[in-house]
């Protein structure tokens, strides 16, 4: 294991979905859910992937895990381009990459008690066979703060926070290196959300995990991420360290997004200048020419329609795709 090499390198990742054909006219253009996403992720760190609904952040997560096969691009995981591997050869990599979803109650089989759910994950990958297994399961439950007598329970008997702990537990059971957290704390109440966020951070320290933390909630992302990538309409528009993105965001979309997040402090909240964007997200089947944000951008100029802005280097690790920065 080479620690200096990034665990994950994504290059030009694209996922296009065919639009349904209608009876008349030419075939509609495909929906470009993800359209040229590139980044690298160091072992043991957390990338926050933020953006609004429909920007392609979840699809990016699925395409990295090969849950959706990308239309184009490379996904290099620990030195191997897994996007080019046939399904059979992917198996060993699946163990090393796991995912946690928003609604874990829906992602847990309702007919299986918690203990069996975790055993199933071990079975599939042939881990901890024999006498040690019971002890391993207790150890895993303990790791996520679930009392071992809950192993007999069914998912519907768990609270939202407990179900999320089980989903995390099952992901950890196969000893992964990368975990994609897809809105993993978004459905939880604040008091429970804080418990799960702290748990994810503790586990990362203890086990050296690498996270891709997909979320629309920038407050949580600021809390948990080392690097942040802001997505808009299938592209990463800005990427930087946590500190840079929250203190010196350069792309007009990142700035608007940050200014729109309410802050729970009456004086601070009332003194803020908010950038209010006009209009709605354009359709990803027919994105605007040039810069995709130009239809809502408060600082748009004529040149924005002509040219797709390249990622501009602003500081080490800080890039923004905008002609105005």
């Amino acid at each position, binding site marked *: 294991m080479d620690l200096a090499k990034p665990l994950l390198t994504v290059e030009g990742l694209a996922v296009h979905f065919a639009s349904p054909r209608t009876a008349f006219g030419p075939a509609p253009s495909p929906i470009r859910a993800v359209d040229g996403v590139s980044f690298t992720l160091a072992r043991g760190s957390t990338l926050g992937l933020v953006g609004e609904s429909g920007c392609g952040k979840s699809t990016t997560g699925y395409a990295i895990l090969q849950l959706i096969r990308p239309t184009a691009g490379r996904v290099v995981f620990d030195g191997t381009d897994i996007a080019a591997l046939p399904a059979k050869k992917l198996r060993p990599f699946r163990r090393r990459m796991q995912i946690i979803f928003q609604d874990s109650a829906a992602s847990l089989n309702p007919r299986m008690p918690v203990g069996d759910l975790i055993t199933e994950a071990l079975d599939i990958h042939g881990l901890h066979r024999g006498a040690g297994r019971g002890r391993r399961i207790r150890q895993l439950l303990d790791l996520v703060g679930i009392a071992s007598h809950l192993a007999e329970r069914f998912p519907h008997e768990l609270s939202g926070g407990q179900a999320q702990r089980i989903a995390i537990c099952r992901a950890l059971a196969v000893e992964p290196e990368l975990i994609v957290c897809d809105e993993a704390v978004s459905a939880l109440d604040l008091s429970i959300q804080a418990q799960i966020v*702290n748990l994810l951070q503790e586990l990362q320290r203890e086990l050296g995990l690498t996270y891709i933390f997909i979320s629309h909630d920038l407050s949580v992302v600021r809390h948990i991420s080392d690097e942040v990538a802001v997505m808009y309409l299938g592209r990463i528009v800005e990427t930087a360290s946590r500190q840079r993105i929250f203190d010196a965001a350069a792309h007009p979309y990142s700035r608007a997004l940050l200014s729109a997040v309410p802050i729970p402090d009456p004086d601070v909240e009332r003194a803020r200048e908010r950038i209010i964007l006009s209009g709605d997200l354009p359709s990803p089947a027919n994105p605007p020419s040039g810069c995709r944000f130009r239809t809502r951008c408060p600082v748009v100029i004529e040149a924005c329609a002509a040219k797709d802005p390249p990622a501009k280097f602003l500081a080490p690790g800080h890039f923004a795709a905008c002609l105005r920065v």
Partner: protein
Amino acid sequence: MALLTVRGLTTSFSTDQGIIRAVNGVSFTLEPGEVLGLVGESGSGKSVTALSIMRLVREPPAKVQAELLDFEGTDLLRADPRTLRDIRGSGIAMIFQDPMRSLNPVLTIGRQLTETLVRHINIDGNAARRRAIELLEMVGIPMAEKHLGSYPHQFSGGMRQRVMIAIALSCNPRLLIADEATTALDVTIQAQIVELVRTLTKNLGTAVIWISHDLGLVAGLCDRVNVMYAGRIVETGPVREVFYRPSHGYTIGLIGCTPRVDRVGTPLKPINGLPPNLMDDTPLCPFLPRCDVAIPACHRVRPELRSFPGGHFANCLADLTSRHAELR
């Protein structure tokens, strides 16, 4: 005179397993034009409080009781269905989280707007149509006249919520209840909608009850805040008092576990444990099992409402003054 007075509101639901006390003795008043926040987590009784005021809770299985439930001199608890229908829409209007479920999918936007106008205001069809166009323009829908013939599915989520706001404000209600009205929207769209509701209601002098789990939203919008936990208001006061000098263990816990986009974190301080089962009515403070500031007296008596400077009240025995410094 207060616009709305709620005293001792209790809403319970009988189920096979027992009686769920969703709202358990809620009291507050609202002045004309005032903006009140109702915060708390899922199941704390925020929405049921609003629905009980609107008398939109189905009885049975629910049972709504109160010492007083007064809106502009009308006793909402004893009013006949006809009076209630008059008040809903023209006196109190409500917008919900999911506009797709509040709008009728098979009627045009124009029809749904004029329907409300004709029902509540003495107005003929043509005038109603003109007023509907005005209203859509007021909430920032482009090409308003053309969109009168559009159906809800043809709009985006933000646009649908604008239509809901137009309908809600169409008959100049004195009170607007927004129940998680922007929760399902993206933050940039939320900012648009919040700004819209804030300016419109300010100009029209409409009082607003913002129901939200988002402390940031409430901090920016409200004059006063009610913090709810397990069906009760545990703390109430002016927004700055509640955020800077919280006096209930739950409120300070809630603030401590909320991440902020403008600060890099000290680790979040989660509130341990789970909210109580609403079927078990404890004789003590409902937050006691999760409270980290409890004092011995908390295990013996239920806290009375204590008063703090500036019209600020909390149902808590502990003294939290020493912890206020960490909040600024």
